[in-house]
């Protein structure tokens, strides 16, 4: 008898203790962000830092209407299998009404997850891929209702580049495309070929460039044989060594050619690793440059970097800014969904579809709707490498990317 009383007493005590905290046992908000922080595209931990710092900032300010966001960050090492595996693991482990938003960062991961994300889990998925196939004219929200891209498709980027080449060469330019043997690399090729034909430019060489390459001579000599004078490099970021190898080899062998690049090659990393070889390069980017402090989002990123003491480790502010953007974006749509009293996967999707936002001023104050599931803003820049200067005791090539075009909305303004 005494034993039984004792147990009941303990239980009651337990319930009494739990009750007050039960009030704060609101449904947790869980999100998963995956970034390529290591692997063949190079070492890019800034992604993760930006996201984590952003999340901590948001949660410190109250999170989503008072509730903190539980976030998971994974390094998918630029491998589609790893990305898919991570997502599958979390989707299986977490509850549907708690785990309501996810992001990825590789074109090659989108395809295997089409059914899982769009049909099975029905969870909104933001991606750093700008795949033409998924987000371009052949895909889009009708086919992939839960996929959202944070930029303009590569196909669009290539079209912008081709238009620039046509103008610069007065229609006579010979274009060579060097791409990585990945989904990312091959993605825009068809659109590029079609567009080149349309505007009357010749594509004289298409060279695949593997990331196990130690040497770019064969690709470059082929371009030289074909007399290409505009070389577009696509499918790698500027971080890994083989980009530098290609750029330098191209510079040596193709003395008069102009080198061009798509979104992920346009940034300070290119100058850092390639030095003088990057001088004169033309690139497109879906974001402002990381040192453009007139841009409110850039300014905010710098402030964050200072606040969270990341300054020394950041090689490319763009990456940090990107991670931060994801965090802010997550927060924005989750808050909107919660305010509409629909903090569920469907609710978040609705919030995204109806989103009209200026992304904290990233695009110079212009806001967009997310109806097309892409942010189709692109700008062309030119790289100028000044002489090497002393910076923290090291000789560092210093240069800038200066915009040579206004922001182009590829949905509306691109012909």
């Amino acid at each position: 008898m005494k034993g039984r009383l004792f147990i009941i007493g303990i239980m009651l005590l337990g319930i009494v203790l739990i009750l007050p905290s039960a009030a704060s046992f609101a449904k947790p908000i869980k999100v998963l962000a995956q970034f390529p922080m290591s692997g063949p595209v190079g070492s890019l931990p800034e992604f993760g830092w930006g996201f984590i710092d952003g999340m901590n900032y948001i949660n410190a300010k109250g999170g989503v209407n008072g509730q903190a966001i539980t976030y998971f960050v994974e390094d998918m090492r630029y491998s589609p299998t790893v990305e898919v595996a991570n997502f599958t693991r979390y989707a299986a482990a977490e509850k549907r009404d708690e785990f309501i938003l996810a992001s990825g960062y590789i074109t090659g991961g989108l395809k295997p997850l089409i059914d899982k994300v769009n049909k099975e889990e029905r969870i909104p998925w933001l991606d750093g891929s700008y795949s033409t196939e998924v987000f371009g004219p052949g895909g889009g929200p009708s086919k992939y209702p839960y996929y959202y891209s944070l930029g303009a498709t590569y196909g669009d980027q290539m079209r912008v580049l081709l238009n620039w080449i046509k103008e610069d060469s007065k229609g006579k330019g010979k274009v060579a495309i060097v791409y990585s043997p990945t989904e990312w690399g091959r993605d825009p090729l068809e659109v590029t070929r079609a567009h080149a034909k349309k505007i009357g430019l010749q594509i004289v060489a298409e060279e695949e460039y593997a990331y196990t390459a130690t040497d770019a001579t064969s690709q470059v000599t082929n371009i030289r044989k074909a007399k290409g004078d505009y070389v577009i490099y696509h499918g790698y970021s500027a971080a890994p060594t083989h980009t530098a190898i290609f750029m330098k080899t191209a510079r040596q062998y193709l003395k008069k050619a102009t080198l061009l690049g798509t979104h992920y090659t346009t940034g300070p990393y290119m100058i850092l690793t390639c030095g003088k070889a990057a001088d004169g390069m033309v690139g497109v980017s879906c974001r402002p440059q990381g040192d453009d402090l007139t841009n409110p989002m850039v300014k905010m990123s710098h402030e964050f970097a200072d606040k969270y003491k990341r300054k020394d480790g950041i090689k490319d502010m763009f990456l940090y800014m990107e991670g931060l953007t994801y965090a802010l974006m997550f927060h924005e749509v989750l808050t909107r969904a919660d305010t509409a009293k629909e903090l569920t996967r469907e609710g978040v999707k609705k919030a995204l579809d109806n989103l009209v936002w200026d992304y904290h001023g990233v695009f110079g104050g212009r806001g967009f709707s997310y109806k097309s599931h892409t942010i189709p803003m692109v700008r062309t820049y030119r790289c100028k490498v000044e002489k090497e200067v002393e910076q923290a005791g090291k000789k560092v090539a210093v240069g800038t990317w200066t915009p040579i075009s206004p922001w182009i909305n590829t949905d509306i303004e691109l012909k």
Partner: protein
Amino acid sequence: MRLNEEMTDLIQTLGAGLLIGCVYGLLGLGIVIIFRASEAFNFAIGEFLVVGSFLFYIFFFDLHLPFLLALPLGLLAAGAMGAIIERLSIKPLLGRSALSMTIITLGLASVLRSSVQLIFGAHSYSFSLELPDTSLEFGSLLFPSERVWAGLLSVVTFGFILFFLFRTRWGVAIRATSESQAKAMAFGIDARFILLMVWALSSMCIAVAGVMISNFGALSFLTGIAGLRAIPVVLIGGMDSIGGALIGGLIVGLCEALVGSYIEPLGLVGFKDVAPYLLLLIVLFIRPYGLFGTVRIERV
């Protein structure tokens, strides 16, 4: 005599192949001299390449020493590193089987690779030596300066090593010890110190090759992949043949260049990395010890 376009292409390809072949030959030499002395294959060659290049980087880019000063200092540092590594990981195995030593180099490769990442980070370092321009241009033939320097310095280094091995007393001692440690010890040659010297020399060769290769692009811990080119080089040339290392290097260089120019455009991208191994298989079928390996003096 006007060369038609095909001839020009061929000469361009062959020239490029020979130039890079010299660098590969130097890498092969690094392997061969260790193999002759310790009978071990240094699988950590890629990592030695990277560490040597980083040591040079410190002298040239960080400390801003002029090239003529930075290079010898960097090489000395690389040699010292090779010696330290030998003391710590190889010497304890003296007398044990060559297989043990070879396996140790595998572990060594891992340790070195991780250490490089820890110390220098995982990103790429811009690497432009900006040596005086020696590019060769004849009509539409073009051999960029970096490549010419690579071939030149590799051959010069090779020559130094040959001179050292065949015209100095230390060279004689090294060759004697490589032949028989026991006999060497019996005549007062400290075989342990000789091995140390051999590892130091090998590290220096590999460092020179590393600096040249880094100059083609950028330097990061991944640059070491190029070191594995040494495998077909020494297996084709003969694991214990010094001359074979150079010939093997040139052959691999030519093979790579020819495949890159003529076979890859047919669609087999990346084949030029595989081709030397196929060639290796063919050579081994005909000469199992490599083209110049294991020449034995037979007592009749």
